[in-house]
């Protein structure tokens, strides 16, 4: 019977795909996923104008979208271009626009400062059945952004350091408000780490300065994260077949990044099993540590999968023994 043959094949296809996908996470010569070694887009926070804790604006409201970009050392200039639209109802693949909303937002020449867009959410009639907006764009570091839609590159210079990005902006239409989650604290070797480096702080020369000093060794450094109580919100979603309204408690996805060395988990979750995220950070090789100290920036982002976003940045100075 072909149906059984093909459904069995379906299971094997999934397994094979999973195997291949998992192979990508196997130890190899790839750059660590937790390493920020170039201008790297790390996410975007949506804040409703007048109520920044909310991440899903209502029709007719305004919101700010501010992108987070990590740098290997001091801040770099950025250029960007974004188009906001009502998306096509696609099931997979890179999202597509159905029709544009508002004018494109463009910062053609690179400048200091995070890319940001002010959004005016359309009214109900314009939105139709859409429950989200789609933002498509490019962010380019130290170079002019590409605005030619026929060229598949983020920067006008094809060798530039840039990223093509998408972001879904959920719109509250069902009375279910979503709030941005909040990271609480970071500890390093069981001590609270609250030092933040200035955006223009150089990547070396921090020995003896204000940043917490870590003497290089082969031992891993223990990091721990906590979220603010109540960050995990309960929401209602239709699940199963036939669909049944089900209350679900959010799992919060945390991305762990550093500008040097390697953190053992690139992704971790705050969920029912893990109220605290414990990480191990392997320091960079001794040869990579500057004689006058290397300033390492640690960035942790958190997402709730429904548009909510938060991040926390800390810094330490690694000194040679």
């Amino acid at each position, binding site marked *: 019977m072909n149906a059984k043959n093909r459904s069995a094949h379906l299971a094997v296809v*999934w397994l094979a795909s999973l195997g291949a996908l998992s192979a990508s996470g196997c130890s190899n010569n*790839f750059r660590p996923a937790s390493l920020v070694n170039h201008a790297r887009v790390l*996410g975007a926070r949506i804040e409703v104008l007048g109520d920044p804790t909310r991440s899903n604006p209502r029709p007719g409201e305004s919101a700010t979208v501010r992108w987070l970009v990590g740098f290997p050392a001091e801040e770099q200039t950025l250029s960007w271009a974004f188009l906001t639209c009502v998306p096509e109802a696609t099931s997979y693949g890179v999202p597509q626009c159905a029709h544009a909303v508002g004018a494109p937002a463009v910062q053609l020449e690179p400048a200091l400062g995070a890319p940001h867009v002010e959004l005016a959410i359309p009214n109900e009639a314009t939105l139709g059945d859409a429950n989200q907006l789609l933002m498509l764009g490019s962010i380019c570091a130290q170079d002019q952004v590409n605005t030619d839609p026929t060229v598949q590159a983020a920067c006008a210079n094809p060798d530039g350091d840039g990223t093509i990005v998408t972001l879904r902006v959920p719109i509250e239409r069902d009375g279910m408000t979503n709030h941005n989650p909040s990271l609480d604290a970071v500890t390093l070797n069981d001590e609270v780490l609250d030092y933040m480096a200035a955006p223009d702080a150089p990547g070396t020369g921090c020995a003896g300065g204000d940043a917490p000093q870590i003497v290089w060794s082969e031992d891993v450094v223990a990091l721990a994260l906590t979220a603010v109580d109540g960050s995990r919100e309960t929401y209602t979603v239709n699940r199963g077949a036939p669909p049944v309204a089900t209350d679900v408690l959010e799992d919060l996805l945390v991305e762990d990044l550093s500008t040097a060395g390697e953190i053992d988990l690139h*992704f971790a979750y705050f969920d029912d099993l893990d109220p605290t995220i414990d990480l191990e950070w392997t320091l960079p090789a001794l040869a990579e540590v500057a004689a006058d100290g290397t300033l390492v920036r640690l960035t942790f982002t958190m997402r709730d*999968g429904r548009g909510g976003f938060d991040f926390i940045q800390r810094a330490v100075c690694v000194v040679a023994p």
Partner: protein
Amino acid sequence: MRFFNGLLTSGPMTISRRWGRKLQVTWALMGALLGTSAWAGPALAQGASDAGTPSTSQAPSAPAAPVLVPPHLLQFVQAAYPQAAEAEGLEGTVVLDITIAADGTVTHAVVTESAGHGFDEAAIDAVQRFEFEPATRDGVPIPVIIGYRYVFELRVPEPPPPAEVEAPATGGIEGHLLGLEDGLPLPDAEVILTGQEGSVALRQVTQADGTFRFDELLPGTYALRVITPEYGDMDQEELVHPGEVTEVTYRMRLAEEPPDDLTFGATAIVDPPPREVTRRTISREEMTRIPGTRGDALRSVELLPGVARPPFGAGALIVRGSSPNDSQVFFAGTPVPLLYHFGGLTSFVNGGLLERIDFFPGNFSVRYGRNIGGILEVTPRDPATDRFHGNLDFNLIDLSFLVESPVGSDASVAVAGRRSILDAVFQAALPQDVLDNLSAPVYWDYQGVASWRPTDRDQVRLLLYASSDSFRFFLKNADGSDPSIRGNLSLSTRFFYNQLSWTRQLTNHVQQEVQWMSGTTKLHFALGDLIAFDANFVSNYGRAEWRAQLSHRVRLIGGLDLAVVPFDVGYTGPALQQSEGAAERDPLTGQAIDSSHFRGTAVQPGFYLESDLGLTPELEVILGLRLDYFKEIDAFVFDPRLVARYQVHEGTTLKLGAGMFGQAPAFQESSVDIGNPALAPVRAAHFGLGVDQDFGSGISLGVEGFYKQLWNRVVGVPNGLPPRFTNEGIGRIYGLEVSGRIRPGGRRFFAYLSYTLSRSERRDHPGDPWRLFDFDQTHIFTVAGVYRLPRGWEVGATLRLVSGNPSTPVTGAVYDGTNAVYSPLSDAVNSTRSPLFNRLDVRIAKQWTFQSWKLSLYLDIQNVYNQNNREGTRYSYDLSQSAAIRGLPILPALGIRGEL
């Protein structure tokens, strides 16, 4: 391994050899002469063609229990070779009618087919001195007339051994004579052994268990002639080595029932013609000896021409550029859902239970429907009827057993089972910081076969078989590139089938076969909260077929089959895309999740009619019609098919095939909930043209060109927009297959070669450019050989050279700010290709033979020189870096096997 030629057919075994002067055994003349109802065609052409015992059509079964017992030759007399003919190097065959009195003496002999040159007179002179055990009716001796063929052959004398060489040690020949249809031993058959230059002329009669033995033979080549009134005669050549006993097994096909006028004849048995342009058959003797297969019979299929190599050796059956979904595996005539455990580790059935594996890469009979690719028919054998047998096999991967025994005089049973032992070592090898092992990978399977012959016209067979694969892990940490990959990961595939079949010889010319299978299939796959797939099927499959030999040139086959499958499927996960031709897939994180649960019953009846016509002795034409109905999409498919075979001259056969094929979309593609119920059946047209050449001495070669056109292929709508799937896809596949086989006499060595040159392309939507099929492999070259050394040693090697699989290069990425993952931007689908795959496998085995049992030790090493073949590409988290995914390294499998 048998490819195109049917030389070593199911019997009487026909051989064409070249040794010194040409020796020929022409069975067909005898058959034509005696007017049997079997197909009349030159036997060598039959052998040179792709003939063999059809996988599904059977020769008329054994006649009724004999009230009549034919005469039995007790004293053979060697005729004097006519001097004039010998001087001229002439050979000949004289056919005579011999009248045997009730006391067993020859009272009259008349030539019915003359050979001239003095052969007739010499033959008459000899046969008149034959002595027989007389024929009987109900135990009372009666006079009879029999047909007899006397062959005069010349042999090149062997040079005398050098004087200084010591007289070599003697050897022997031990044989086992069985009937083909039932596997029963043939007692009381006469076996005549003749040495070179007539140096030796010995005679034996087979024992009750069908065995015979000649000892104290000088090394060299001997001619054996087996004479049985019911099964006809057979000639063979065997090689005797010093200090060794050559073991042989002969299977003979039953002759037609003698006519009512008590004339018994040694009949020429000519196999019914194959019903397909190309059928490639692997015999039981060879299927477990192929290097690189770890003794797994079904894995040997991968080495046949037309079969592409799946990545990582996974068990997908990719036939002549068709998707695995387009081909079907049949076990004892009914479709099975999976061929291998865990997608390719080992097959689901014990190879010791198999009689034959038939592979039809295209243009297959109307007996098979609902598929547009190829057919793999796995035929189990009947259990042994002589005595208890058993074997136990233990290797580094699994433990298996097989036991079989007669039950009474009319029945026999066999039970086999296997269980993996991977779980015993899995826990120790598990990376504890990554995985928690909730349930280690385990597979098992079992088969039970019971065969019963209540009468000589009936055979009833019961099959019970099952297979299971399962594992369950817990991924402690989220994947570094796709954070949704975490949590529970589980897979389970199970099926349990019961099958009852009944074959009855309704009349001397009409046979009926009825079979019914019922069983369950359960499939499960889950990944965290993201993907859940559970499917349950209650499979019911039936077939009824009637085969009628209307005349010696006309055969008619009609039948119907029915699949009724209630199903219950639940799926939660990302939207399904088309199964083949998709670009690099997006991460699971952030994809829209579909949930659906649907039930239904698939009903698929099929009707078929086929006629085999012998228009001339050289030309056969097979016409077939098939009608299928697919209830789930309310569609009919009508498939006409044509096969023609023309014997140009002895040993050379041309073949031609053309036909239509159809199959239903995959159930998820036509599902109301997650697919498009308005889909139409997928269609294909097959065309084939080829030639088979038998060079004699066990050497044969076949060349076949093929072309396939596909239309109504099911393809996904871009980005999964409604209606999700359409029939807009088309495809074209063309190529050339070369197959060669060497199997000289003596059974010490066999080798085969296969080469396929092909191109498989698809076009998914109107206006799209043509692209390569996911598993398009331009060149597929395989050469394998197995040699049996003295003292029970055997060595073999298989070399494979295969074009790399196509792949879609990633040219960039898009960052998803909502989910922190990267989606690939790709170049044209399948626009690049992995490097050439090459691998050498070797197998070494040693067998010790004791009085009542055998012990074997084997070492099967895949990828002996540890080639780093590339199977695919993996990417870093942001798709900016790539690295090759390497295939399996050197993989030794050591095993031990005991056999009663």
